[in-house]
């Protein structure tokens, strides 16, 4: 039942707004609303009860193992939420003067420094509001760099076929053409294919390492050399930074620009789809182009903002007020809780968990996409044999996992591996959770063999059974509308 269906004309949580309607007669009649918007009319209790019960219909990290590959669903420490929600932080207006902003600016500046250190980059901007915006900022800086040198013909961005969809989409938004580079059979970029496509038209390459197939590209130095020698720059997609945090630094691998997904690696919440934060780091030659604002520290006068006036070559402003500050604060708090040692442990235990889970699934007879490789913080199994033998596909297995109380891994991505599950357990899961997941996978395979309909019709124990995505797209219904004349009333 929708909240709108709980609505009755005249009902409302009356204490939550001013108790009377103030005079607004100076608003010209012609510009006024004629009918009330059909928002729900419910009591506070009804709203609380409705959304509390709705929340219980979600899987989440706080309730379930959630090994969604490439998404880094690790535990979000509760202190990050409560400390970022201290009244002093919540009440600060984005246009407050620097005299009244030193507290948060200190946090932001320290976060800039910590991100520089952990990525090996020369400078960092916290401005991008999410990973995709960080990507856009990254490729825009590459373009700004070439343009500033008069190198206007570099209009082609190389993207591996295994890349996240955001990579080509961002490159297009920055005005590039996209050329795909194939992945080799061992999971590394096909270096010969790369050599064949680089040239004077090459603006750069967008890579994530470890890649989305779950392995660390051993040729990264050769790739960097190839692209750099062709005059291109290397962009690092930080989606998989959790795999190497404190172990290898993108800056040391030769990357010129990087974005980070703080909501992945720095454990800020995913929130059912955001907010994220996508800071970008750059080598020295790209520093002038960083998006604004930046925080600078002046030993005498404390912290101050750098904006358009201070950074005339900047690619500019990406949101009105400089980014998802509350998320940056959470990441800062997380980083302070971890410290240097804790950061190294993130990648170590994320990798341990992934390799353990890979080893157990392999031992249980599941087929690895890259059996000869180490897992990074994630790995891929392919269910093409099960699909062929039992007529049960990856999506069926994913849905059946929900019945067993496990969120499904990422399905059908990367596109180059058929019937694949991309599995990322993260470092915060205990061994028991991994073992339980393996048991569930074994049981589901047995079900697929013995009672395939059970798997094909899964899930069975959730608030709804398998949903019809085709119907959703064909018979589009994306907003509730009030019955004619019912819920609307004159103001």
């Amino acid at each position, binding site marked *: 039942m929708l909240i709108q269906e709980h609505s009755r004309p005249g009902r409302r949580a009356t204490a939550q707004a001013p108790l009377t309607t103030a005079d607004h007669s100076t608003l010209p009649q012609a510009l006024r609303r004629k009918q009330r918007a059909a928002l729900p009319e419910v009591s506070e209790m009804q709203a609380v009860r409705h959304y509390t019960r709705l929340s219980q219909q979600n899987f989440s990290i706080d309730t379930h193992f959630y090994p969604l590959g490439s998404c880094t669903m690790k535990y979000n420490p509760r202190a990050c939420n409560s*400390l970022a929600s201290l009244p002093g932080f919540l009440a600060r207006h984005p246009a407050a003067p620097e005299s009244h902003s030193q507290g948060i600016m200190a946090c932001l500046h320290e976060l800039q420094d910590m991100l520089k250190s952990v990525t090996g980059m020369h400078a960092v901007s916290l401005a991008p509001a999410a990973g995709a915006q960080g990507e856009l900022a990254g490729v825009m800086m590459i373009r700004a760099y070439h343009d500033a040198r008069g190198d206007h013909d570099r209009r082609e961005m190389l993207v591996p076929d295994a890349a996240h969809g955001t990579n080509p989409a961002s490159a297009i938004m920055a005005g590039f053409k996209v050329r795909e580079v194939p992945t080799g059979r061992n999971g590394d970029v096909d270096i010969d294919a790369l050599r064949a496509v680089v040239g004077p038209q090459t603006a750069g390459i967008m890579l994530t390492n470890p890649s989305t197939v779950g392995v660390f590209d051993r040729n990264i130095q050769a790739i960097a050399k190839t692209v750099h020698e062709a005059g291109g720059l290397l962009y690092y997609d930080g989606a998989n930074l959790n795999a190497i945090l404190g172990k290898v630094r993108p800056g040391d691998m030769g990357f010129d620009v990087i974005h980070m997904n703080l909501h992945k690696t720095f454990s800020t919440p995913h929130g059912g789809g955001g907010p994220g934060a996508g800071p970008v780091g750059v080598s020295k030659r790209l520093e002038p182009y960083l998006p604004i604002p930046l925080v600078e520290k002046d030993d005498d006068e404390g912290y101050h903002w750098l904006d358009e006036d201070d950074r005339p070559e900047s690619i500019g402003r990406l949101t009105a007020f400089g980014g998802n500050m509350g998320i940056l604060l959470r990441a800062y708090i997380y980083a302070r809780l971890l410290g240097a040692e804790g950061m190294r442990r993130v990648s170590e235990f994320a990798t341990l968990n992934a390799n353990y889970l890979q080893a157990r699934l392999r031992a249980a007879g599941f087929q690895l996409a890259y059996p000869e490789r180490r897992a990074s913080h994630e790995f891929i199994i392919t269910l093409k044999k099960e699909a062929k033998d039992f007529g049960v596909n990856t999506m069926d297995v994913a849905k059946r996992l929900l019945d067993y109380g496990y969120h499904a891994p990422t399905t059908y991505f990367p596109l180059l591996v058929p019937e694949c599950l991309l599995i990322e357990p993260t470092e915060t899961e205990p061994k028991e959770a991994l073992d339980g997941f393996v048991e569930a996978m074994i049981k589901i395979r047995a079900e697929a063999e013995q009672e395939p309909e059970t798997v094909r019709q899964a899930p069975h124990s959730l608030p709804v059974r398998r949903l019809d995505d085709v119907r959703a797209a064909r018979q589009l219904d994306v907003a509730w509308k009030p019955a004619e004349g019912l819920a609307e009333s004159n103001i």
Partner: protein
Amino acid sequence: MPFIPHTDEDIAAMLDTIGVDSIDALFDEIPAELRAQGLDGIPAGLSEMEVTQLLQARARSDGEPTCFIGAGAYDHHIPAAVWQITTRGEFYSAYTPYQAEASQGTLQVLYEFQSMMTALTGLDVSNASLYDGASALAEAVLMAVRSNRKVKHPRVLMPRTVHPFYRRTVASIVQHQGIELVEVDYDKRSGRTQIAHCEAVADQPFAALVVPQPNVFGVLEDVDALTDWAQARDALVIGVVNPVALALLSPPGDWGQAGADIACGEGQPLGMPLASGGPYLGFLCCKQAFIRQLPGRIAGKTEDLDGKVGYTLTLQAREQHIRRSKATSNICTNQGLLVTAATIHMAILGAEGLERVAAACHANTARLAQQLCEVPGVEPIFDAPAFHERALRLPAPTETVLAGLAEQDILGGFDLGHEYPELGSALLVCATEKRTDAEIAAYREALTSALVVAKAA
């Protein structure tokens, strides 16, 4: 080990299963020369207690000034229930709802949010959020250029009465799409964009006109005339609106003869704390005809195997993870948690509650402006009706006055002089429903003394 549950026994057993001797061995495919040696610049970890003490000190360090700044972010009361429910782990720590059956909570919230936004804007459909109001306007501009089948010229008329940060954001984001953003001037007396200003730059066809309501000065634009004017020229109209103001003001869907085509804006007034500027919530609504050009997530209603109603992400073919380089946008993660907060906020307040909030803000700002204008030398800049912000002219440099007010723990407003030098010493003030009579009186007094100091300087 903070947040890592592994015991020594666990580690030993796991390494044994993998068949390696140490965790370090798991990194053996990484070229040795790349392995990071240290993490200089990252301090040692702290306990939660120590971090708490540090952050409490930082949060306290900037005092508790009284806020009279608006300019795109508004200090509204947020019902206590909103964030207590929003931060429930099941909302807070869930991912984008890719597995719909395990995400009905989030998906239904998205659908309800979309429904509420269409109700507020009077348009047919809404997406499930963008980053913020400014980036939503950038997406709206891109979308309008893609959508306009009659005008192929990628020109968009952008009034100067659109928030300057929004204009800069749009300029940044669309800079490589070959879109020409044409500035439209405004009337210095009323603060409004007049048809004449539009005409002055409409010598070539244009794909869209942006119409802010209220505009950056708080002034109410003549949205009906602007809409009709632009649509008569085959352009699309993009409304940039404040959702709280929409409780009282004509919704974009009702503008002019045919209604605006697209509406976007900043959802922050719907239950988001000021929080230094984010995370906020960009929203984007449009007429049904343009839905396939809408960027971002969209939740849709459907049925399960038993015919039971459920919700799922739909029209994913528009999105980057399916369409890749041909997607409507590169957006992936959006502002889901803020959508949850906004949805609960609107459910609790309802239309009448939002009306009261809007009316209180309007009345408070009117009273504030009146009282400040009793201070000698302070005067209103524009004479047109306005919503809950007012542009005032000061008899001393705005920057100096604001600094003087800040010393008295009053954040006096937004300095318009940087962006609108033609206005002289101009200050944009706002008093939301939270500002009391006593605070308004205190501002007036503080302004009086700050002006004395500023003039003496």
